């Protein structure tokens, strides 16, 4: 399988947790090298969707998944696929990221290698490259051997992205990547996503509609585990088809009883 940006297809994906259905028949596709933003109210299943793509959802006790997720036509849920190996190709930045305890900044960024006792060819270079890409290099270059737990929230957020990038994944999943960032940090991350185009297929969960509008090629609107609408970004933000999408993005919320 090519390591370059694959085409990502989600087909009739269903997921539940503890008996409660979270995703129901979710289907959409992302062209290679494109960015899809997943938007929707809290609890609509966006994070679960992300975790189902890299087969992390099934690790939770009481979690079930069915359906298919195809990368360049190959189903990640087929019995031949090794989930651990999959997660090296499909990187993820979780919501509320953390610094790994007991590691220096340098080792934390390269944790994907350190934990598996492998090393890239030029570790310092790899670390510097990814730290520069997330706009963190200048802030940490003089203290690379200090513990990563000493960084502040915004730095940890960028570190987590760098950590995922260090493994050079062909697919990148991001869950609220700008949550802890100031406008400058956000701009860096969005610039980074733009740079990743064509090399990486990106799936981005964000509550920030403007970010979705700025960065995404296409947008999926998820509500209560269903795909309400999937369209090009420009279309969805100027003239969505579904009135539920229209209501959500313009700020017309129904109060739920």
């Amino acid at each position, binding site marked *: 399988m090519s390591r370059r940006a694959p085409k990502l297809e989600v087909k009739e994906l269903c997921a539940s947790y503890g008996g409660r259905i979270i995703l129901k028949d979710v289907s959409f596709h992302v062209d290679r090298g494109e960015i899809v933003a997943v938007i929707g109210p809290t609890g609509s299943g966006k994070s679960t969707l992300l975790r189902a793509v890299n087969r992390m959802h099934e690790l939770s006790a009481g979690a079930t998944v069915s359906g298919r997720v195809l990368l360049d036509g190959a189903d990640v849920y087929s019995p031949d696929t090794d989930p651990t190996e999959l997660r090296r190709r499909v990187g993820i930045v979780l919501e509320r990221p953390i610094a790994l305890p007991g590691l220096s900044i340098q080792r934390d960024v390269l944790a994907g290698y350190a934990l598996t006792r492998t090393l890239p060819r030029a570790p310092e270079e790899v670390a510097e490259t990814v730290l520069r890409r997330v706009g963190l290099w200048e802030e940490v270059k003089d203290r690379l051997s200090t513990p990563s737990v000493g960084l502040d929230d915004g730095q940890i957020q960028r570190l987590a992205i760098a950590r995922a990038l260090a493994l050079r994944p062909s697919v990148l999943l991001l869950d609220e990547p700008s949550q802890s960032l100031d406008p400058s940090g956000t701009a860096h991350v969005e610039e980074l996503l733009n740079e990743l185009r064509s090399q990486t297929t990106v799936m981005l969960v964000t509550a920030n*509609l*403007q970010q979705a*509008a700025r960065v995404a090629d296409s947008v999926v609107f998820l509500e209560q585990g269903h795909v309400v609408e999937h369209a090009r970004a420009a279309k*969805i*933000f*100027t*003239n*969505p088809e579904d*009135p539920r*999408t*229209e*209501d959500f*993005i*313009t*700020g*017309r*919320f*129904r109060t739920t009883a």
Partner: protein
Amino acid sequence: MATRHTDSFYENELERLRDRVLFMGAKAEEIARRSLAALAARDAELARRAISLDPEVDRLEVEIDELALAVLARRQPVASDLRFVASVLKMVTDLERIGDLGVNIGERAAELALHPQLPEQADVVELGEAVMLMLHEALDAFVHADEARARAVLEKDEAIDETFSRIFQNLVRTMIARPDSVDRATRLQSLARYLERIADHATNVAERVVFMVRGKDVRHSNRG
């Protein structure tokens, strides 16, 4: 949309914008109406009073532009809201032109009041009434976001063009037949042209309304 914006301040801002546009439209319409009345009544004074309403229309254009920009900057509107604000920005240009054209009509009406009336003047007045109706319908369509009404306005434009053409040709014949009528005839021709242009602007407004409601751009597609 049945529901309102959860943020009521935002809802109010959009309401206010709609309000101001309607007000500006009504004012521009009034200038044209009064000028046409002045033409029919051959009352120069009435014409002058109509013309005096124009500065208000210009002022409203500036006010609405500022309001719309503020909404864009602060609210980053999307989807229907975005189409609404974008339409407003375009429409005020048309409305301001309508105001100016109303002034022009008033000026011609004041001039024509001093001389005996040509028979074609009645036709022009009738054209004027049809155009006023169109304009009124277009503004109504905007206020009620009524696509059907807007499309009805688009239908009428062709008829107006034909009527204007006919009147223009008649006046040419009159000018050839009676050289002393040239002065009055040319003024009537200008006046009729102003009306035809008001109709065009009213059509623009209607096209914006269709875009606003449906998200479909119908410009340049319904002109023959």
